[in-house]
C-alpha cells in the first residue's frame, strides 16, 4: 500500500520537476535571436569575433553597412553584418542542400545603440521549409543552439 503511494508520489514529483525544468528552458520569443551587450560597439565586435572562433566558426566576411550609408550621405551609427561558417561543414551542407545557398554563410547583424550593442539574427530553424528531413532539422537546431550559446557568453561580458 505504502509502496504504491510512494510510486504515485514519485511519478507526480517527476512530472512536476520535468515541467518546471522545461519552463526554464523555454525562451519565449524564438524566431529572432537577439541580445544586448553592455559593451560598446568596438568591444562587442571583438568579443563576437573571438567567441565565434571558440565555437570553430570563421568569419568569411564583414559587410560594413554604416560605411556604405555614410558614404552616400545618410546618418547612421555603426552597423555591420558578419558572415560566419565552418568551411568544411559549409561545403558539405551546400552539396547536400543546394537550395540553402542563398542563406549561407550564416549572418549576424551587429549595431551600436548608444554605449551598448545589439546583435541579432533570424533563428536558423525557420529555414525548415527548405528541407523537412530530420537531418536538416538537427543541423539548423545545432546552429540555433550555437548562436544561443554564443549570445549567452557575450551577455555575461561587462
Amino acid at each position: 500500500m505504502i509502496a504504491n503511494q510512494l510510486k504515485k508520489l514519485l511519478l507526480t514529483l517527476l512530472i512536476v520537476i520535468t515541467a518546471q525544468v522545461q519552463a526554464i528552458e523555454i525562451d519565449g520569443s524564438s524566431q529572432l535571436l537577439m541580445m544586448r551587450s553592455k559593451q560598446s560597439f568596438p568591444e562587442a565586435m571583438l568579443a563576437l569575433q573571438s567567441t565565434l572562433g571558440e565555437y570553430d566558426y570563421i568569419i568569411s566576411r564583414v559587410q560594413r553597412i554604416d560605411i556604405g550609408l555614410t558614404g552616400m550621405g545618410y546618418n547612421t551609427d555603426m552597423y555591420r553584418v558578419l558572415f560566419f561558417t565552418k568551411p568544411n561543414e559549409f561545403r558539405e551542407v551546400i552539396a547536400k542542400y543546394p537550395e540553402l545557398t542563398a542563406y549561407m554563410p550564416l549572418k549576424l547583424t551587429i549595431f551600436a545603440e548608444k554605449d551598448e550593442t545589439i546583435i541579432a539574427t533570424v533563428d536558423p530553424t525557420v529555414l525548415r521549409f527548405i528541407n523537412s528531413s530530420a537531418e536538416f532539422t538537427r543541423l539548423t537546431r545545432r546552429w540555433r543552439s550555437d548562436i544561443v550559446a554564443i549570445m549567452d557568453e557575450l551577455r555575461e561580458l561587462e
Partner: protein
Amino acid sequence: MPRFKHFSTALLLLFTATTSLAAPKGDLLYEKNCGTCHGLDGSGGVGVPLSLPSFQASVDDHFLFQNIRYGRPGRVMPAFSDLSDAQVNAIVRHIRSLAPHIKPVVLDNSKVISGDIINGKKLYSENCGQCHGANGEGGHGTGVTFSRPRDLPIIAPALNNAGFLAAASDEMIRHTITYGRQGTPMQAFGRKGQNEQEINDIVAYIRTFENSKHWQPVAVDEATITMESEYGLEESVENLKRAAVGKNFKVIRIQNLEDGMFPEAEQDKRSIIVYFCNFSFVNRAINIDPRVGLFLPCRITLTEHDGVVSLTAINPRYMSRFYNNSELDEACSEMYDIYIEIMEEAIL
C-alpha cells in the same frame, strides 16, 4: 518505518531544492527576452522605455502582463506565448523594479466605458489622429538608433492593434487620455479642456478599432527565389550586373561563394555571389526595423551545375514574417518584386 521517514525527508528536500531552482528569475528573463529592445535598465531602444516614470505610473500589472503574453501583432513586440504565467509575472515584477518609487495606478479593468462613437471619432480625428494615425495605425518605424531622434522616447502606439486592444482596458485608455504621459508627446487632454464625457466618447471610438482588419503574417512557404539561366556562368554574371544597375542598384562586390573560407586556389569557381545595393532603400529598411541585417546587402548567387546556371536569392517575403513588423512586410514585398525583375531580366 524509519526508512520511509528518511525517504520522505529526502524527497521533500529534493522537491524544495528543485522548486527553488525553478522559480522564475525576473531579472534574467527580462535580460534575455526584453532587454535587447527595451534596454537592460528599461531606458528603451527598439522598444519603448519601460522605466519611464509616467509610463510606470499610468499602467497596471494587468496591462504589462497582457502585453508580454499577446505582444503587438505586426508592431515588432512579439507575443511571448511560450512563457509560463509565473515567468511573465516575474518579468512584470522586474519591470516594476526598474522604477521602484513609482506607484502604479489602480484601475477597474472590468469597467466598460460607453460614449458617443460619432463624437468620439470627430474628437479623435482632431486630437489623436496626427500621432496615432487616422485609423489608429500608430507612428512609423521603430528603434532609437535609426528611426528617430534620441530625444523622442516613444513612437505613438497603434491603437487599432489587436494586442493593444487586448491589453488596454477602457479605464486604462481613459486614464492615459486624461493624464497623458509626461516625457512623451502624449498630452494630458483632461487638463487641456476635454471634459469627462468627451474623453469617454474617444475611448468608445477607439474600442471600435476592434472591428478593423488586423495584421497577419504573410503566408509564403518558398524560402528562396530561384531561376535558371540559358547563358553560361560568366555571361549570366554580366547580365545580372546590368540588370541590377538598370534598377538603380550599385554592384558592390562579386566573389566566389567560398571566398573567405578557403584559399583562392581551392575555392569552387562555379558558385559566384553578386552583391548589389541601393543605399536609399537600405536606409529606409533600417529605419523601418534596425534588425534587418539578414537581408543586407542584396545578393544573388549564381551556380553552375551540369552546364546549367541557376540564380538564387532569399525570399524577403518569407523572411519578413519573422520580424513581426507590418511596415517591413511592405518593404519586403517591394524587394521581392525587385529581385524577380532583376533575375528575369538577367535570364532573358
